[in-house]
């Protein structure tokens, strides 16, 4: 976790997303798949105060140019629109790497990677890492429509199999990743599911994994004000080793959680049995 100024060395369209390359000479330490970065947006006099969080897509270091961090961003609201419209050369305030990355299996077990939309951004580096450890890698990518799929070609190259779904059927199977995942897992006998995408998808993936006894590693996306663990905005209910539910920061204890530990049905609430939950008539 280093804060540094990076130069925007690349900003190009990939489908509906922008692929950004941020170059720095700062020493940022080891980046692993699942780590994220935050970026300040809008400049010094902007009305937008909060940093935006993005999965780190890829990192490369060249002695000559320094470290290049790549992000894949959807220009949704004003902050991401600002970022997407910056010309190359702009200096950007970045913090990286943040959070806890995906846990990797010690044994070469079959793994399946499931991603929705830009959730595929961290999956390419993850697939490479898993393959280098001798794991079988199957991939399921989904999106609303073809232009919101990311990384299909790269993953095709790396993975043992790839299945694509789109809500509108514009590419691959019409439907959602959860429609095809059970089959893929059955065929590959997957032991670990890595997932990155919207909460609903993560919940479905966790349920499917639970049914087959696979381990789910889910990268969640909770709104974050600070990204570094000081504000407590990014919490969700997670069951600890002691079996008790706590409201846990997804920026420092996540964004990757074990799927069976997250109380998916209770996200957006404080379950009554959580540690420190309001007692009736109390607090």
């Amino acid at each position, binding site marked *: 976790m280093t804060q540094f100024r990076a130069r925007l060395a690349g900003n190009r369209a990939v489908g509906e997303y922008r692929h950004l390359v941020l170059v720095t000479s700062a020493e940022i330490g080891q980046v692993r798949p699942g780590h994220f970065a935050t970026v300040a947006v809008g400049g010094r006099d902007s009305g937008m105060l909060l940093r935006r969080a993005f999965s780190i897509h890829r990192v490369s270091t060249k002695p000559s140019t320094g470290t290049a961090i790549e992000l894949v961003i959807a220009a949704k609201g004003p902050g991401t629109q600002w970022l997407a419209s910056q010309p190359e050369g702009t200096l950007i305030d970045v913090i990286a790497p943040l959070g806890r990355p995906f846990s990797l299996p010690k044994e070469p077990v079959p793994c399946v990677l499931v991603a929705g939309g830009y959730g595929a951004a961290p999956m390419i580096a993850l697939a490479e890492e898993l393959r280098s450890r001798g794991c079988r890698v199957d991939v399921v990518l989904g999106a609303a429509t073809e232009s919101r799929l990311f990384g299909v070609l790269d993953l095709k190259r790396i993975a043992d199999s790839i299945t694509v779904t789109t809500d509108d059927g514009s590419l691959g199977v019409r439907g959602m990743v959860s429609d095809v995942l059970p089959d893929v897992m059955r065929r590959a006998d997957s032991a670990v599911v890595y997932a990155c995408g919207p909460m609903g998808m993560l919940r479905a993936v966790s349920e499917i994994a639970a049914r087959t006894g696979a381990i789910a590693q889910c990268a969640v996306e909770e709104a974050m004000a600070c990204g*570094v663990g000081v504000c407590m905005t990014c919490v969700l209910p997670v069951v600890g080793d002691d079996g008790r539910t706590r409201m846990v920061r997804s920026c420092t204890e996540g964004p990757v959680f074990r799927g069976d530990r997250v109380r998916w049905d209770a996200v957006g609430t404080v379950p009554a049995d959580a540690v420190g939950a309001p007692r009736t008539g109390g607090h």
Partner: protein
Amino acid sequence: MAVDLSTTIGRLTLPAPVLTASGCAAAGRELDPYFDITRIGAITTKSIMLEPRSGRPTPRMAETPSGMLNSIGLQGPGIDAFLEHDLPWLRQRGARAVVSIAGNDVHEFGRLARRLRGVEGVSAIEVNISCPNVANRGLVFACQMGSAAEVMAEVRRYADPTVPLLAKLSPDVTDIVEIAHAVVDAGADGLSMINTMLGMSIDPVTLRPHLGGRTGGLSGPAIRPVAVRAVYQVHAALPHVPIVGMGGIRSGRDALEFIAAGASAVSVGTVIFNDPSSPLRIQQELHDELAARGFTSLRDVIGIAHREG
């Protein structure tokens, strides 16, 4: 030329005037990678309650123009865990700690003060009587003279008399000077101002309040003019009461506004989320702003906006 940045809050002398604001720095540890936390005045820790507390449902934040709303609801581990894990870490690290406390009732505030008696590493106690993020608006003690004074008197009764007490005030009142008088009369050695302002935003998709807690606290540069005004008014009425000024401080210039208005020290809150290294940066910028104007000591500038010409 070096400017003497040391400052005094009651019996406490701080080597430097910039603090972190409660709730914006946890207990300091997470910020240490971004700047040397021993170099600023102090870390004000997240308001701690007697028991562990899970806070409000998410979403807990909304970005607003030059600010944000939060509805954390005082999530925290409770005083025991705080004293076991957080405070010792700060002490070992060599950082000064202003410990913020919050109770559900007057009695709890007293118990928290008692728990802090004799504990090493407590530079000052900040009494958070002004958090808007609680289920019951009645909990905003700082909105009524009576309840504000009652809490302060209770804390004063049980707290270590050598540790300065800061009362944290809310701007959501008709007359903040009146509240300031009440808490000082009840035993506060200084005032922290301001806490967040009660606000709301509506989600454009659902057309329902965006925050899980419906209302939240507004903070950030958006509220700075209200904060400066509050500090100015209270310093005019109570010139000898030290004030820790806060509300949207983003630069050394902003900090200087608060010092000139009458603050003896300042806290950086929301801007930490934008720039986690900002407290030390702002302290350095404040130093440079003072030096550029030929001042040799921060103390000469406290309240200067009240002097003629």
